[in-house]
């Protein structure tokens, strides 16, 4: 077939506006990693199962390996790079993962945190069961999820102004 026309894509990522011309077939995860050089979101399974590529788009958690960059035109996106404050202070979720040992190899962590961020916006004080069903689209092969759940509970407690448990068991 004839040469494919590139398509303009304008997105706001972590508060900064970007415009690029891309092949329509470029996946959003490749756009974020290779065009914007934001490599926090990971490519894990590349088949929409594992959730390592999860980013926040217009307030929703989406798997950026199963979406074209052109579909995100006009969208506002947050990646893990947008979570800490400009002075480096960790977001409550990042602090929770650190304090509660919510990661081992860390590969799933950016996706877990971005998913948990939307979960806590929609449900600021989830039960353990709600956390587990809320992160059902994110796979971790190291932790067994126990400390990930605790990390999210830590963040929920902190964001709700409660005293937080200091360390994982």
């Amino acid at each position, binding site marked *: *077939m004839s040469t*494919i*026309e590139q*398509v303009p894509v304008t997105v706001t990522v972590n508060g900064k506006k970007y415009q690029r011309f891309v*092949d*329509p*077939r470029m*996946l959003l995860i*490749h756009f974020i990693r290779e065009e914007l050089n934001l490599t926090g979101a990971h490519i894990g399974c*590349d*088949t*929409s*199962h594992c*959730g390592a590529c*999860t980013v926040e788009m217009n307030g*929703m*958690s*989406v*798997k950026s390996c*199963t*979406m*074209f960059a*052109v*579909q995100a035109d006009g969208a506002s996106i947050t990646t893990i790079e947008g979570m800490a404050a400009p002075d480096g202070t960790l977001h409550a979720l990042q602090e929770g993962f650190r304090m509660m040992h919510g990661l081992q190899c860390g590969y799933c962590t950016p996706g877990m945190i971005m*998913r948990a961020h939307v*979960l806590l916006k929609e449900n600021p004080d989830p039960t353990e069961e709600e956390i587990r*069903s*809320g*992160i*059902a*689209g994110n796979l971790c092969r190291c932790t067994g999820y126990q400390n990930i759940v605790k990390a999210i509970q830590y963040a929920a407690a902190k964001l709700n102004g409660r005293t937080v448990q200091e360390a994982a068991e």
Partner: protein
Amino acid sequence: MIPGQFAYHRPSSIEQAVRLLADLGDEARPLAGGHSLIPMMKLRMAAPEHLIDLGGIADLKGIRDRGASIIIGAMTTQNELIHSDLLAAKLPIIRETSLLIADPQIRYVGTLGGNVANGDPGNDMPALMMCLDAAYHVAGPSGNRTIKARDFYEGAYFTALQEGEIVTSVEIPVPPAGHGYAYEKLKRKIGDYATAAAAVVLSFSGGKVATCAIGLTNVSETPLLAEEAAEILIGTALDPASIAKAVSAAEAITAPASDGRGPADYRTKMAGVMLSRALQRAARRAAA
């Protein structure tokens, strides 16, 4: 994995989308939530030369109350179905079923229209729509028409849609107040297709089953409407003997494949187990 090249089109009206599909013919595919099509494209099992993104068409969105029925735009996402107060009040089985589809991220993007229209027998909504006797409103090059869900599915990935037609909305008759309902799905893990699943909507009158409809997911080339099984239950008190008879009748119409979800015989039995559980749960929820 990188899909093949394609040209991208983002129409802003149903008319434009239909015209594009008609003009571009075989080489064009509509894109809804993309969670079936994009994985296929990444595996190069699908390689359309043109993608018509339906995401920019406002008329395909929204859930409207028509009194006796509810009309749901084809591009309404599963997450929107889950959070609709109208559906929670009038058609709670939609929420129950939506929560069993894929995972939270995919439900923000996956659409009702895509789920019912692509003809994948593993999808959950088709059997539910047959159970609810929904109708699909369709737009195409020769105008608009309506196809009953019960007449829509012809084979795996084969539906009554003609070339250039898209489903624009789904119209669902509202079951009577006090109806019982349940969607029971056996799956190996979150995000999996059903090993077998059953949708039940029923109502009682004077302690006896007055109306009953049963849909079965992923136990044949198409979703199934278990008419004989439902017929057996009408007029009974949903006693164990009647349930056993209905389960046998439902199992008899299944023809599942043997695959990673189990041998065919097992999947047939699981369809029966899901039906039995769905009937009992629906009965507990129904007003006597």
